[in-house]
């Protein structure tokens, strides 16, 4: 299966491990991801906070390139996913606005590219059975709290699942890899996202709630699909422990890293060593259960 692929800024830097694990997992499952040539930033939070036309134009430039390559564009970062999907909706629903966007990007784009998150491709196109058949090293009951954050399920019109208040797509994929997802109530709560640097106190407060609840729900680790969720819960966990005076020690994996381990891929290929909270103990537990 071939798809065009939008990596986005974070996957080239802070979330390099999300990129390498995505590419490795895709290859292991026979999916070819062709990076969009000359892709540029989707505009992320600051563009839509400043001007609606700018936000849609920055995203639509990439969609117009993708249109020439094929019907589907695969995205991993939930923020990029959200901006690209929002741009599609904006140009498809308003002809006059579509005209303004065409003027801004120098070509007409009608919203025709299907923007899809990697989770959707795994669930809909590959299928749970195929994933399950490809597992060589089961995650053996590893207790995972699947954390979706905001932008994979909100707003409703852009949700990758039919039930935005209780998504289960990540749970089902990781179950197929042998993991045992825990039931927990904070899976679509917000981590504070782009306030990481400009209002760190908020991110630490929200992060503490999320990490504590994951632990209380019996999770060994958290799985995420967003570079900002990952960094807010992993990179800031030591600071959160300090202000909460509580030891948490919960590794925060990209879901592609956990799936990759189950597919028998190496730690190096999955960028496991880039995680900040040491995941070795949790991974040993899973391995020794086999």
């Amino acid at each position, binding site marked *: 299966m071939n798809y065009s692929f939008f990596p986005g800024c974070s996957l080239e830097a802070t979330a390099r491990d999300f990129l390498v694990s995505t590419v490795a997992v895709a290859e292991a499952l026979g999916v070819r991801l062709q990076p969009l040539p000359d892709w*540029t930033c989707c505009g*992320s939070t600051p563009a839509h*906070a400043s001007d*609606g036309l700018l936000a849609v134009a920055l995203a639509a*430039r990439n969609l117009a390139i993708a249109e020439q390559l094929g019907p589907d564009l695969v995205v991993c970062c939930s923020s990029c996913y959200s901006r690209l999907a929002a741009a599609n909706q904006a140009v498809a629903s308003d002809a006059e606005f579509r005209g303004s966007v065409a003027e801004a990007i120098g070509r007409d784009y009608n919203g025709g590219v299907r923007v899809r998150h990697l989770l959707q491709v795994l669930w809909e196109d590959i299928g749970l059975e195929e994933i399950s058949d490809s597992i060589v090293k089961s995650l053996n009951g590893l207790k995972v709290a699947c954390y979706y954050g905001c932008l994979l399920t909100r707003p409703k019109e852009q949700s990758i699942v039919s039930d935005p208040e209780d998504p289960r797509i990540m749970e089902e994929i990781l179950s197929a890899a042998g993991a045992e997802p825990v039931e927990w109530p904070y899976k679509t709560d*917000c981590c504070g996202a782009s306030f990481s640097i*400009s209002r760190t106190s908020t991110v630490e407060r929200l992060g503490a709630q999320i990490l504590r609840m994951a632990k209380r729900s019996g999770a060994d680790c958290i799985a995420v699909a967003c570079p900002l969720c990952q960094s807010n819960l992993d990179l800031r966990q030591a600071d959160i422990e300090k202000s909460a005076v509580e030891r948490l020690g919960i590794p925060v994996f990209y879901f592609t890293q956990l799936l990759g381990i189950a597919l028998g891929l190496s730690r190096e290929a999955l960028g496991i060593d880039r995680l900040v909270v040491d995941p070795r103990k949790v991974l040993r537990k899973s391995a020794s259960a086999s």
Partner: protein
Amino acid sequence: MNNTAQIKAINRDFAAGLDPEGKLRLSTCLQCGKCSSGCTMRLETDILPHRLNRMVLFGMEKDLLASKAIWMCVSCQTCVSRCPMKVDTPALIDKLRALAPKAPDQETDRIRIFNREMLKSIRRFGCVYELGLIGKYKMRTLDLFGDLAKLPMMLRKGKLKLLPPKRNGRKAVAAIFKRVRNAGRVK
């Protein structure tokens, strides 16, 4: 939080100017408060979402543009997703931010400065140059030491790149910024 709104006269022009076609559905708000009970920032903000919507309809421009609330929205989309009337509060807040010159205090203004520096990074490089963005932000806010201790680890783990990226599409991005600005939109 102030629980009473002081209004002398209703100015309908403000809401009409922000949302001429009624796309944000502000006037359908039932004041049920579902948005506010789920708001990520409900414990920190100064105006809750359902109240903010009503203040726009009342035309309380000055209070809104001087609020922390419009900067403290983290764009999590919880309010609009749960709203029974589909009032698009996050989009409303984006429009209010574009009208406000800056946030009311230094601490909240950091959010505005960060957004602006990130946008500049995108305009210049075609994507976000994280290390450069953090440096610029720290110089502008004089928040020099926060997270400094994490930098060596982040560089070692390859989470930050020292040099700015060179994306081929950066000129196309700069051109988009220029055209949108010429259309009289971005400040």
